[in-house]
């Protein structure tokens, strides 16, 4: 059971969250992006062993999308930020 410290709600169990995948991908610029760039954005994901920056939605809480640093080996949770802040 992961415990994720939500910046708004405090430390909460993973059952309150919905996983949102790799947080580092950026939606391509629709004016300039090639089809390959779209394919990469939609389908291509790394499957790293170790640190991973990922999105979690606090669905049973404040409904914030969070950017969570998680180690895929140890499941240790590092920094947690609001996606809105992480983007800026």
């Amino acid at each position, binding site marked *: *059971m992961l415990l994720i410290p939500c910046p708004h709600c405090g430390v909460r169990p993973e059952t309150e969250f919905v996983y949102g995948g790799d947080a580092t991908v950026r*939606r391509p610029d*629709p004016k300039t992006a090639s089809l390959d760039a*779209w394919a990469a954005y*939609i*389908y291509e994901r790394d499957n790293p062993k170790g640190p991973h920056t990922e999105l979690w939605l606090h669905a049973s809480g404040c*409904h*914030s*999308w969070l950017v969570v640093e998680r180690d895929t080996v140890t499941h240790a949770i590092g920094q947690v930020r609001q996606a*809105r802040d992480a983007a800026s």
Partner: protein
Amino acid sequence: MTRNRTAEGGWLIDRASTGSFTFDGRRVPFLAGDTVASALLAAGDPLVGRSFKLHRPRGLFAPGAQEPNALVVLNDGGRLTPNARATTIPATPGLQVRSQNRWPSLRHDAFGLLDLARAVLPAGFYYKTFMWPASQWLRYERLIRKLAGLGPPPRMADPDIYARRHGHTDVLVAGGGPAGLAAALAAGRAGMDVVLAHSGPAFGGGLHDRGDGPHRAWLAETLQALAALPNVRLLANTTVAGYYDNQTLTLAERPCDAAPVGDGKPVERFWQIHAERVVIATGAHERPLLFADNDRPGVMLASAARRYLWRYGVLAGRTPVIFGSDDTIYELAADLTAAGATVRAIVDLRPDPGAAARRAEAAGLPTFAGAMVARAHGKRRVTAAEIWRLGPRPHLVETMQADAILTAGGFGPTLQLHAQARGALLWDPDFRAFLPGPPVADNRSAGGARGVFDLQAAIRDGDEAGANAPLPLRPPPPAADAPAPWDLPNLTGGPRFVDLQNDVADKDIALAAREGYHSIEHVKRYTTLGMGTDQGKLAGPIGLALLAAATGKDIAATGVTTFRPPATPVTFGAVAGGDFGEVGHAIRRTAADAWHEQAGATFIDAGLWRRPQFYPANGKTVGEAYRAEALAVRAGVGMVDVSTLGKIDVSGPDAATLLDRLYCNTLSTLKPGRGRYGLMLREDGRVFDDGVVFRLAADRFHVTCTTGGASAVYQHMEHALQVIWPELDAYATPVSEEWFAVALAGPKARTLLKAIAPDLDVSNAALPMMRLVETRLFGGRARIMRMSYSGELSYEINIGANRGAALWQGLVAAGRPHGLVVYGTEAMGALRIEKGHVTHAEADGRTTPADLGLAGMVSARKDAIGVPAQAFPALQEADRKQLVGLIAEAADARIPVGAQVTAEDLGDQPRPSLGHVTSYAYSAERGRMIALALVRAGRGRIGEAAFVVSPVMGESAAVRIVDPVFIDPEGERLRG
């Protein structure tokens, strides 16, 4: 008194308090404190079950939860519990215990003949024999299930109460033996919050498996000290089942033991505990020894014999042979002799056993050094042991009459929890066992679980673990001056069982290796080694060593199978807790739910919502009712509760921009008060959801989505707002529950609306399609939206949920003179199929707007999620499945459930599928069954004949491929 009960002694029993339970209908007396197993053994018969595959007679074998043989059925009716381990079930008055996996009786098992067929039932037998021809597998499986069953499942609801609790603690100690007690005391005295979980009723564990001594006083003092600490919680009868990430553990507690209660107390309690630190003090398991027919009832681990003797005053046999490789066998022989048994022989694998052996010999006990028990005689119980001298020319020394063979093959730590917490297991050749490697999570193994087998050392180790002292180095290994259990030769031939529960013998593992299975995970699945309810606790290490030998690898390189929770079986009842039946999940009810209930509606689940599927008042069966309901809508007026549809309020200066990016069509051009059908895509170009969007004001929209998609659509919106375009100034608020919603549909819908809103101009000019007006109805603020799902003239009325019941009842009353019929989801489905509207059956996550005939909705003039992906070549292939309609050729033809669409009807013969039926209904208007289907290049096939076939149902019907809109293609009715 019973046959094998000693004259005195037994730490856990009360000789003054007696009772009886039944075993296969026979009365079995017991003493208070007995387990089912100890009482059965006291009664004199170790035979408790039949093995899983070969139906060989099996007896009590191991001391506790690792018991592979004594699986029994408890109780009857709703309280029936299969596969209970007799060694862990307290004997209680009136308990019904039955042996399992035998027919007609334990002694005379008809399937025992399978044992004669052992030669033809090798590893992988089922895979090899029964998979061909594949079409027959279902038939074979039914027979195999009958033969190779564990206990039967209960067929009635369980009347007992199960509870669930969550907890937090500084230190969780798993195991209440000497190390665990010492750890709990040290941590408790240091002021920590401690939970100490012990799998049995009596804290002390192995301390109860030996005679009197200073350790008894230590146990009493320690228990007293623990009881005096308010920060220590003692959980007896509690197994730590799972150890998960972030120090989350699950515990199964049986506060009322196995006795049926029914006094409102839970029979089991499932804990989920978060522990800052875990001490794993779950002890060690004794390894079985390999010899021919080592599974006969009466063959037992020495540790089990010790436990029966000291805890329960029960002799494992009156004339036992004791076989092993260390000094404990002489100790056990002396203890059993003192308790009244006649030890027939002590067989020591060591050629030169030393002082203990000499003392035993001097005491008149027959001892055999450098020897082994090579074979057990007897079938339903041991009658003799063949003692063979080892050496360059092994030979039979004596066939010793005996009623039990007690084996001492050395101990290995229990590793389940350490391994579940991702700790590595390190093969230690000196221990001949895996030891826990450095822990990865915040835990430490202590005592026997770490290889510290000496009692004083284990107490010290537990004390240090409780005080969180640094983990010391590897404990000193026991002497290894005899062959390892897996190195013993098979001198007599005959099966030597490694996994008793699953009937895996040494030659099965050798066969698997010869056939190319070299990974232990593959061998496990191929031979079923370790796949029983005991999870191979005893079999695992030996199986591994045998595989290593057969493949020429060393044991460390062979590795271990994955340890998965639960460490010991947990009942479904405990895991489910109170979450079943009516309270299994929350039920969402619309404001008109009480009316539906009173009207006798048959409900159907839609996510958490319950919705009327049909009203039996309209027809006897679901088919009759929905046809009548749908017909009434087309002919007059009907109404349906649509409150469950998702509703999201989107507001803010950038609300219109947000919606333009969320929907593939343009919504920003809507004028206030007007609505438009919107199609939402996933970024990969597939249809995600749909619904009607009304603009309430320049900066505010009322968005509807499907019942099933409501929460996903909201998450998707928040993802767009927070992750993709955080610069947009807009807000999404789910408001589904704020509104009660009803759809009026049918040619007389306007008449009915007029009746409840006499002051409102409801003319076609004032309220045309896709127009919204706000008004007051039945004392509440209401929104009336002209839109149509059924294809008829239709309005959707939304009103504050607290006025919902009033609106619904008001409509029922006002509709009576107009012949209003209330309809359910079934009729709603039939109406939308006639109209060719898609739902998630068609927008199944694979279909694009073009597949569904909605390509025209995709606007290329703006950016929106899923629009760029429309250009992917795969989404433009000519033979993609496309939405079409199907209409039955014959008026009485049925469309089978789950049907495929084919060009030819070839009966039972296989044939290529052109596509599949997604929804079907009876169309009253067309007078036959119709369907929507996804068919390869389907739009090009319109007009062609085809078949809908279901080989599973054995049904087929001739159909014609048609346009998916079956009625009113021009939409004249809904605009009228």
